[in-house]
């Protein structure tokens, strides 16, 4: 019996860890099934691309949120930040690509500086990123007071790219999840970031610098935010600083759905990809079901609660 139980134990622990993402995955499969039963074209390559494409920027922004949540911080500015990136993509990146790229790199650097200041001044990230969100909004309105502009050709080409054989949106979703997985779960740097989230004192006692870990986590979040904004701009074909303001809270919800927590110390890039797609698909399902647009956010909220309630039940069963 002992030999039988021994290998079973880690599997059970693993199940507990992955249970939240599994519950979200069940919700995801259920939603795709509903879509397919209403509209059989959804299961074709073109149909899946169409359904998934709207979720890509949200999923990438959610990976940014997850990176910060893994060090125990939270980003309440990511929505306006993504909006600001679409504005830069629709203006400077078109008129003078070099300046545009420099601005985007500057934005990533600004995130690293924000993380450094949050660490050095020991202030709550919640308020610092909230303050930063006003700055992003101001900058975005400053560059482009009203929504508009055009995206660079290469970006627009990416937005309309339709490879044969597989749905195009899957590629960025999986690629970014794999990159974040390598950074946060597989690299030495990732270990430091998660250590900062779960036990900063232990990290310091081990002779490692928590400042570097936090600054790099913020820089990574900034880079992912830029990527999310570029993808969003490629789809909308223009810039609007408030186009992604719902992302701020949606990304937090996606991380929680994917099995992340506010305590920090955990990295769940694959879970976040599932959670983000689940959240993003809600609006697609609802429009297929002919739910009036006014009721969509209510159903979105109820689905989040239902998935989390399912998680509580699964957690109790596994305990």
């Amino acid at each position: 019996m002992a030999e039988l139980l021994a290998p079973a134990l880690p599997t059970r622990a693993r199940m507990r860890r992955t249970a939240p993402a599994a519950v979200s995955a069940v919700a995801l499969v259920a939603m795709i099934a509903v879509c397919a039963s209403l509209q059989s074209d959804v299961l074709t390559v073109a149909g899946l691309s169409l359904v998934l494409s709207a979720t890509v920027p949200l999923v990438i922004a959610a990976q940014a949120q997850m990176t910060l949540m893994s060090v125990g911080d939270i980003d309440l500015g990511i929505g306006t930040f993504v909006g600001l990136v679409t504005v830069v993509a629709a203006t400077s990146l078109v008129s003078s690509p070099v300046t545009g790229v420099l601005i985007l790199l500057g934005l990533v650097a600004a995130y690293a500086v924000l993380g450094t200041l949050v660490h050095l001044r020991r202030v709550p990230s919640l308020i610092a990123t909230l303050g930063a969100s006003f700055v992003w909004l101001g900058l975005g309105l400053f560059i482009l007071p009203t929504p508009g502009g055009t995206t660079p050709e290469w970006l627009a080409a990416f937005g309309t790219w339709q490879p044969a054989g597989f749905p195009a949106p899957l590629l960025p979703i999986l690629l970014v999840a794999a990159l974040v997985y390598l950074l946060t779960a597989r690299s030495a740097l990732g270990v430091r970031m998660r250590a900062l989230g779960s036990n900063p004192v232990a990290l310091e006692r081990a002779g490692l610098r928590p400042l570097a870990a936090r600054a790099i986590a913020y820089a990574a979040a900034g880079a992912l935010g830029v990527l999310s904004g570029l993808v969003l701009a490629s789809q909308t074909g223009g810039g609007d600083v408030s186009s992604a303001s719902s992302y701020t809270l949606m990304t937090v919800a996606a991380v929680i759905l994917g099995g992340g927590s506010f305590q920090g110390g955990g990295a769940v890039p694959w879970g976040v990809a599932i959670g983000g797609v689940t959240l993003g698909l809600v609006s697609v399902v609802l429009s297929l079901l002919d739910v009036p647009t006014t009721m969509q956010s209510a159903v979105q909220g109820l689905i989040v609660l239902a998935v989390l309630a399912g998680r509580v039940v699964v957690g109790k069963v596994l305990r």
Partner: protein
Amino acid sequence: MNNLRALGTRPWIWGFAAAALVWLAILAISGQGGGQTVSLALSLAPYLVIVGLGQMLVITAGPGNIDVSVAPIISLAGFVSVATAAATGSATAGIVAGIGVGLAVAVVSTVAILGLSVPPIIATLAAGLVASSVTLSLADGFAAVPDPGLRHLLNLRPAGVPLLAVAVAAVTALVVALLRRTVYGRSLIAVGQNRRAAERAGVPVARIIATTYLASGALAGLTGSLLAAYIAPSADLGTRYLLDSVAVVVIGGTLISGGRAVPVGVWGAALFFILLDGLVNLVGWSTAAQNLLKGGLVLLVLFLAGGGDRATGTPSLFRRRPRPAAATLTTTGENTHG
């Protein structure tokens, strides 16, 4: 005991100081009407103060506690209260209906937080999403107009002091008394400082948390009812109040990690924000500059004031002298709670 002293003395100064600085800047630029500026600020600030007081109670309940449903509650309560007031002909019924809406949304959040162990930010987000859906369906073809009597009352300024400001000042005093003198207030602060210790000491944590979220919902509902009568009901009536309510609470000196509430500080910070808007309008800057200035100042104040000891997980604003060891000890376990 240390908390009582902290409550009464230091942390709320900064918001008022910043407000005074901005007021002096307005005075220097416009060159006249200093009293009029204050009077106008006092008629706009109370709305932010009411919702800020609710947010403050929630944040005081400890790490992870935040109410992001205040914005949708304000918008929804605005429509419901105006509609009720128009239907019944009584402004009081409208205000009660608005508060009821806030309570109803808060019940959804509370059930999710306590019953399903959903993190508060997600629970209030979900409840807020439901509220905003209802708002959107109400806003479609909404025709009722706010009660003229209530609007007149809100605009009343005997001797330059708005009646509403006096009323909200009384509410603030009540909240101070609530936190200092009542079992609920002391329990809330205990829960915020260390939830597990409070639990072991016999504090009914679940009931305290539930009361706190319900209070925040009711106060947001009240804000929405009054604001809709003062301006007009609209779907994005409450939008700016989410970020602003959190910002005024923290600038006011309330600890973001919980356990220390500074109700008076909310006033200083709210006046600061309102006067800042006035200054920017006076100079004729765009909304872009307005946001840049607001964000820049929040960050500047935050980073200049600095925080607490990261190792103990109690980042505190505006702390000038080190806390006694006992106070630090009670907060050591905070990070372990969600």
